[in-house]
């Protein structure tokens, strides 16, 4: 009764319940949780595996695309390198889920036909390859800024360029016929992993992940805005490779597809040799009534209205002379037959590589059909100079069509254009010469002389210019004597005159016909100035390196236009093309880097800005101008390159006390120069030897026992020593033009006062003066005396006079004079006092003569690294970047 069984029982029941309960709950719970957690872990691991594969695919695609786009350089070879680089990058980067064997086996199926280019459009396709479960595809294409995207806010669009011609491939952007390798600026790499097996999922029947695909789009950097000049060149002008090595049938028999830039012999690098001429688009100036086809070679007959038009143009930015630079006139003799490879010429066949590239002025725009107003020109150059003019691929281009109504802006436009170029940090010497000191490179600018012809005249009755003598040879400092068949043209290229301007047909003497009268015809050069080309062969003239836009008609342009029609040109047929007028909706499709140079601008000292500066400096002494607080060199030189060239020697001689205030470094260099200047020695005259050589019978030197031979040897040695000193001075920092900066009139005045040399003053050319002095075996001392008298020496022989005299009698460094030298302030007659500002004529900066040089350029000559057409930059300096892949 009431026995402790209950307790026992409770104990007995408790223990088994406890033990039974744990064994019945925890183990199943643990098993269940373990299954769930392990399953979750398995899922996470498998999912991570997929994530890892996707991530490595993406990374590999990124690196591959960037590596590939880095190789693009607008050549076929660049595209081939790009494909190779993409594959290498994928292999190096590795992809999770692929074996090393699969990666190493990855290769692209290269279906292109190397060494050729086919207009049918299938020989340079995108490439793809497959290895194991991994496949890769490499595509080239174009990325541009499409303003129609994102509700007008714009965005970057990509178009894959399959095939060889962009007429269909690039139709999202512009129309034209150009090899796609040239315009491709982007590479898209797509990597696909067919199958990635799961590790744990297979237990649940999930065997793996399929078709993991990632892609990356990289662009050459051309999607960004870059600083540009307000200038553009139609794309087709650039791609005209008229290399003579290109087989070209006779006119009329050329197959339609065999345009040169589509042939296997196309050489893009040849474009580097061509000169660019910038004009206005000027479509309203219809020349259809200006017939050049009368065959007589006479001047065109113009109506009074046309004469008025010409007169207005001559007074404005545009100039009559440039209308003959007519890119849209059909040749009545073909490039093949008449211009580039006339078989009638002797010697090596000339090349068309100097066929000019015609560009136009304008600015980027955000809307199609926009025009640049003439009044904007000055502001555009100022903006470009300050880095405020920027463009990117896909921008519209607003051409400057006509300046005829804006003649009031001539001064400002010209001034700003001049300042734009002359604030460049390079000189002719830096850019266009090879092998110092002054050997002319083959890309040296050509100047066109307009030597009056004895008969005939322009519509206003002025003398007409003689076609056979169209160039001023900067190398020889004289007009060329170029005629068809000459072995020596300005660049040693016969018939160059036919390439730069429209000349009479050498076969029949006829002028080229203006055949395509339906289209606007004339381009004129708004930066072309006056009647004759000056002798401004100053190699220190500034050059501005800048990018100019390459334009093409927008695909949907209402004019349905294209800018060039070389197919017909090669056939000898009229072109069906128009200039890049606003109606053609030009769009920026690329950039090229050029060296802009200024052949001549009008005397800008009439401009208020320049005049104010000059008025400020004129009262100052030379030393003040050079070294004063607001020194002229730093403020004026950017505008007047040669204004920085002063006569240091004279300053040293005449202003020793003022120089003491100069910095030590300046004094040191001046002193060094002065010491060398003092080493100049008079050249013995050996006058009797001269008489002897003239056959007067006397022998020897009358003044002493020195033989003629010894005297002449001494003279030669001294002269050589002087020359070496001059060269040494030049190399040590004295500008070469220092020795050129004496106005010929000054020199002639000195000669007139020098006994026995007066008749040399009758010569008109510097070289003739020099020859005269040489012939007369100038007496050095008497020449110095004359110069001292003229220049006002203060007792001892002036260094200026000494140097000038040495220079004059030097055969090697002949007198370099310039009719309008602005190197030195011109002293007024009889009032040459450095400390008296009234002794000087006003400086005449940038008065480099007059002429029709205008603004020209050369494509930057770059043999080391090729240019990327879409950026204008160097292949090496291209800045690849990933961009959003809309398609991806």
């Amino acid at each position, binding site marked *: 009764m009431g026995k402790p069984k209950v307790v026992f029982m409770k104990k007995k029941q408790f223990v088994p319940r406890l033990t039974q309960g744990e064994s019945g709950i925890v183990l199943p719970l*643990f098993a269940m949780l373990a299954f769930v957690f392990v399953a979750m872990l398995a899922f996470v*691991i498998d*999912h991570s595996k997929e994530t890892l594969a996707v*991530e490595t695919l993406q990374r590999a695609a990124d690196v591959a695309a*960037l590596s590939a786009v880095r190789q693009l350089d607008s050549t076929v070879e660049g595209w081939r390198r790009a494909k190779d680089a993409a594959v290498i*990058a994928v292999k190096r980067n590795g992809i999770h889920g692929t074996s090393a064997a699969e990666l190493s086996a990855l290769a692209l199926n290269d279906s292109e036909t190397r060494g050729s280019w086919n207009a049918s459009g299938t020989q340079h396709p995108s490439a793809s390859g497959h290895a194991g479960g991994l496949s890769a595809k490499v595509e080239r294409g174009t990325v541009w800024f499409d303003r129609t995207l994102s509700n007008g806010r714009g965005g970057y669009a990509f178009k894959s360029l399959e095939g060889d011609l962009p007429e269909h491939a690039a139709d999202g952007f512009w129309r034209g016929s150009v090899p796609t390798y040239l315009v491709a600026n982007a590479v898209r790499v797509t990597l696909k992993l067919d199958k990635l097996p799961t590790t744990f999922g297979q237990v649940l029947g999930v065997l793996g992940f399929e078709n993991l695909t990632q892609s990356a789009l990289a662009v050459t950097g051309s999607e960004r805005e870059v600083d540009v000049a307000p200038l553009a060149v139609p794309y087709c002008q650039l791609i005209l490779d008229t290399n003579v090595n290109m087989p070209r049938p006779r006119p009329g028999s050329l197959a339609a597809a065999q345009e040169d830039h589509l042939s296997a012999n196309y050489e893009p690098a040849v474009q580097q040799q061509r000169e660019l001429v910038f004009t206005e688009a000027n479509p309203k100036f219809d020349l259809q009534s200006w017939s050049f086809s009368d065959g007589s070679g006479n001047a065109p007959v113009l109506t009074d209205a046309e004469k008025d038009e010409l007169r207005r143009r001559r007074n404005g930015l545009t100039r009559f002379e440039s209308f003959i630079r007519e890119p849209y006139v059909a040749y009545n003799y073909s490039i093949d037959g008449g211009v580039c490879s006339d078989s009638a010429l002797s010697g090596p066949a000339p090349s068309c590589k100097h066929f000019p590239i015609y560009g136009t002025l304008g600015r980027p725009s955000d809307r199609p059909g926009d025009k640049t107003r003439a009044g904007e020109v000055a502001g555009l150059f100022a903006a470009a100079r300050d880095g405020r003019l920027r463009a990117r691929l896909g921008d519209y281009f607003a051409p400057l069509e006509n300046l005829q109504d804006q003649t009031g802006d001539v001064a400002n436009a010209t001034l700003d254009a001049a300042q734009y170029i002359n604030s460049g940090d390079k000189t002719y010497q830096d850019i266009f010469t090879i092998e110092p000191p002054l050997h002319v490179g083959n890309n040296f600018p050509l100047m066109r002389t307009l030597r009056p012809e004895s008969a005939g005249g322009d519509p206003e009755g002025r003398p007409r210019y003689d076609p056979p003598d169209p160039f001023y040879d900067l190398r020889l400092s004289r007009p060329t004597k170029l005629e068809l068949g000459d072995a020596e043209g300005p660049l040693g290229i016969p018939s160059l005159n036919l390439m730069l301007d429209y000349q009479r047909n050498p076969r029949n003497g006829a002028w080229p016909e203006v055949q395509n009268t339906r289209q606007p015809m004339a381009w004129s050069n708004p930066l072309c100035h006056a009647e004759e080309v000056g002798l401004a062969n100053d190699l220190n003239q500034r050059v501005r390196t800048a990018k100019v836009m390459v334009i093409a008609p927008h695909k949907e342009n209402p004019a349905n236009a294209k800018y060039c029609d070389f197919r017909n040109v090669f056939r000898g047929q009229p072109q069906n093309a128009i200039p890049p007028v606003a109606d053609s909706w030009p769009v920026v499709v690329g950039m090229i880097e050029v060296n802009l140079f200024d052949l001549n601008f009008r005397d800008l000292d009439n401009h208020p800005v320049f005049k104010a500066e000059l008025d400020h400096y004129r009262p100052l002494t030379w030393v003040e101008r050079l070294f004063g607080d607001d020194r002229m060199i730093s403020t004026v030189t950017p505008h007047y390159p040669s204004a920085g060239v002063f006569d240091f020697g004279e300053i040293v001689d005449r202003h020793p006390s003022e120089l003491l205030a100069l910095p030590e470094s300046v004094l040191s260099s001046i002193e060094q120069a002065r010491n060398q200047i003092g080493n100049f020695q008079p050249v013995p005259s050996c006058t009797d030897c001269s008489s002897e050589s003239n056959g007067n019978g006397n022998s020897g030197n009358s003044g002493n026992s020195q033989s003629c031979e010894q005297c002449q040897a001494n003279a030669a040695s001294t002269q050589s020593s002087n020359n070496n000193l001059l060269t040494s001075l030049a190399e040590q920092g004295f500008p070469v033009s220092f020795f050129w900066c004496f106005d010929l009139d000054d020199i002639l005045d000195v000669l007139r006062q020098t006994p026995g040399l007066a008749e040399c003053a009758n010569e008109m050319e510097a070289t003739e003066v020099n020859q005269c002095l040489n012939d007369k075996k100038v007496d050095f001392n008497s020449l110095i005396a004359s110069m001292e008298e003229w220049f006002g020496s203060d007792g001892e022989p002036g260094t200026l006079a000494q140097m000038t005299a040495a220079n004059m009698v030097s055969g090697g460094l002949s007198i370099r004079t310039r009719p309008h030298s602005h190197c030195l302030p011109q002293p007024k007659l009889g009032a040459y006092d450095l400390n008296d500002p009234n002794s000087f004529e006003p400086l005449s900066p940038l008065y480099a003569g007059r002429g029709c040089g205008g603004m020209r350029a050369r494509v930057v000559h770059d043999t080391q690294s090729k240019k990327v057409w879409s950026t204008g930059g160097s292949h090496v300096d291209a800045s690849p*970047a990933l961009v959003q892949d809309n398609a991806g």
Partner: protein
Amino acid sequence: MEFALVLSLLILILGAFFDIGLALHNWMLLRTVTLDASRAIAVNFATEQECDRAEEYLADYATPRLRNAFGADVARDEMNWRVEWLNPSTGVSHAPTFPKVRLSGHFHVGCLFICRVLPGGLTLSAASETVIELEMENGVPCQGFAMRS
């Protein structure tokens, strides 16, 4: 007592599985977000040249995406991004010679089980890098930003 210990041990084992899985998942998420962010920043640099956008992107997109992830330790308000230039010659990428920007993200992952017995939470970090264009002519874009960390 033995049972309790066994139970705790089992729970910890299971919890460790869970926490490891969670950490693995979040680490992969961090890698993915960092890669996406570095690509987005690269694209932004390339197309817009607006350097502040990178910081905005990290703050407005990448960071919230991670914080909203399950297991994120939102109590620890530290979310670090680091953008640094890599010298082309010392970069770890397989890209040939490009200057690079490496974007590193540091991310605290909360834990449900292991942290009960461990002194602190688990901090995960991952780094992702991509190539950002180098403006050869005008200097490095966004250099000020890139040098900040």
